[in-house]
């Protein structure tokens, strides 16, 4: 602080004296580093351009989606018809949310556990190796996950679904006839969870490792065990980071197309996780878009559900931001 204030104050006291005394003498403080100033301006401009570009792209996507989805709710003959679109969209939306919720519920604890192991428990060498493997998980194309889920995981889960149906069918999620192919929304959710574990782990691990040593030692010096230290110092510090990681994972799960389209045998909405049925918005769009004639009401309908997904993702992210900012005062950022 003092180092930045000092030149300003000395400039302020010297400038008037110089101007009064010898006007012709140039102020040595003015000349400065011209190249540096220009560089600063260029970089400022680049950063601004990048920021504006992202907003423009987002705006164009929103405008494109809105403009092209008008046909889904308004036609010349029938006028405004929100009801028909709503009854078409809500099962897909619930299907998407269901698959993503399953994925998050499985992936979050696993990913946070793995990240914690990597950052605080594993020996450094092992931690690096596992870190690479986790990063590799993120690099596998989703179609491979889809194929694995369809041909291997789904059949393997069938016996489990039968057992769940037998003993747990009083819970609505496990009621209904269990699918004999195993290609259900639960299988889809599990495949999605494997896909998003990588990203949640990577983000959480980074943030766990940034926990200030000072706070960890403060907890240990008070007589905390390792786990208590993690609860007292690491988790509170990492809260916002974990939420960001989970939101990135949720974004991927909500938008995932290929894996779900392959794994799920799509059908009408059902709350039974072990029966076939359900679909998600991205899968619905991917499976039907090629057959929808350009400019038709069907195409408009598909684009409109895309817009719904766009808005849902936006809302989810805003809620996450709000959760993070609610505790800003206690985040340690001040």
């Amino acid at each position, binding site marked *: 602080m003092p180092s930045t204030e000092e030149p300003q104050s000395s400039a302020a006291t010297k400038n008037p004296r110089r101007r009064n005394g010898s006007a012709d003498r140039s102020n040595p403080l003015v000349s400065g580093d011209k190249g540096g100033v220009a560089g600063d301006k260029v970089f400022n401009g680049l950063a601004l351009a990048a920021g504006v570009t992202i907003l423009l792209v987002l705006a164009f996507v929103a405008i494109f989606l809105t403009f092209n989805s008008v046909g889904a709710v308004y036609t010349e003959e029938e006028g405004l018809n929100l009801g028909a679109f709503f009854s078409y969209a809500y099962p897909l939306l619930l299907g998407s949310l269901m698959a993503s919720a399953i994925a998050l519920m499985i992936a979050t604890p696993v990913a946070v556990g793995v990240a914690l192991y990597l950052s605080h428990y594993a020996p450094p060498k092992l931690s690096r190796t596992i870190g690479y493997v986790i990063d590799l998980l993120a690099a596998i194309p989703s179609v491979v996950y889809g194929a694995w889920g369809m041909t291997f995981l789904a059949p393997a889960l069938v016996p489990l679904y039968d057992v769940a149906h037998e003993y747990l069918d009083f819970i609505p999620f496990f009621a209904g006839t269990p699918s004999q192919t195993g290609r259900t929304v639960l299988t889809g959710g599990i495949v999605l969870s494997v896909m998003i574990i990588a990203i949640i782990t990577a983000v959480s691990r980074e943030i766990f490792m940034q926990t200030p040593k000072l706070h960890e*030692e403060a907890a240990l010096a008070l007589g*905390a065990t390792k786990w*208590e230290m993690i609860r*007292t110092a690491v988790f*509170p510090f990492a809260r916002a980071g974990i939420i960001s990681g989970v939101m990135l994972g949720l974004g991927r799960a909500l938008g995932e197309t290929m894996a779900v389209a392959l794994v799920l045998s799509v059908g009408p909405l059902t709350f039974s996780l072990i029966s076939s049925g359900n679909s998600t918005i991205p899968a619905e769009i991917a499976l039907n878009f090629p057959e929808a004639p350009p400019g038709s009401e069907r195409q408009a309908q598909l684009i409109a559900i895309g817009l719904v997904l766009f808005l849902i993702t936006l809302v989810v992210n805003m809620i996450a931001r709000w959760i993070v900012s609610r505790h800003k*005062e206690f985040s340690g950022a001040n």
Partner: protein
Amino acid sequence: MSKSIQAIDMNIYYGSFRAVEGVSIDIDSRSVTALIGPSGCGKTTFLRSINRMHEVLPYASVEGQLLLDGDDIYGSGVDPVTVRTMIGMVFQKPNPFPTMSIRENVLAGYKLNGTRLSRSDADSIVERSLSSANLWNEVKDRLDKPGSGLSGGQQQRLCIARTIAVKPDVILMDEPCSALDPISTLAVEDLISELKEEYTVVIVTHNMQQAARVSERTAFFNIAGTGKPGKLIEYAETSTIFNNPSEKSTEDYVSGRFG
């Protein structure tokens, strides 16, 4: 409660590097002992081995005995967590938990120990600890505000309050004033003089005036050169160390001829 400390031939290692060699020292209960010496001489390393915080660092280890009122804290089967609840520590930089309020920071030790406190017990602990740390009057109206919003000196006194809240037997301080302004330093030094009525205090400091002001006995550590282990050179009454040391290197250091 206050306990004496007796180190017997302690060697302290980082991996295979011996950072501190052959330290034996007797520290009385209810006293203030200052550890002084040039940077890298092992005084902080030794301080951190008194409450087994040294071994938190990867590959760090300790040889020898350290007796707390006669009980070896490095004995087999001793849980470092138990040792640390008995020997509190104040660090170089103030480190209140940023996600906790002032009140929660003071009670953090109880929360960690799993002690259930009634509202009134908790209130009295908070008031007693903050009063002992000379901080009560400054924060009593904002106990629910985050501890990280206080000034540096207040934060350090909050950390001291957090340490004394759990009534440890010994308080270790690792250059507690090095990040503070002179007025906050004075407040903390006054506090140290009060603390010795109830606790055994061991303080590492680079500031020799501070050692002279607050401590009764002073230990001078030194190293022969880079890569060599630090050793305890001389340990005596503070006035002896500063006025009439028996070792030449102690005299050179306290008179400012090196270090």
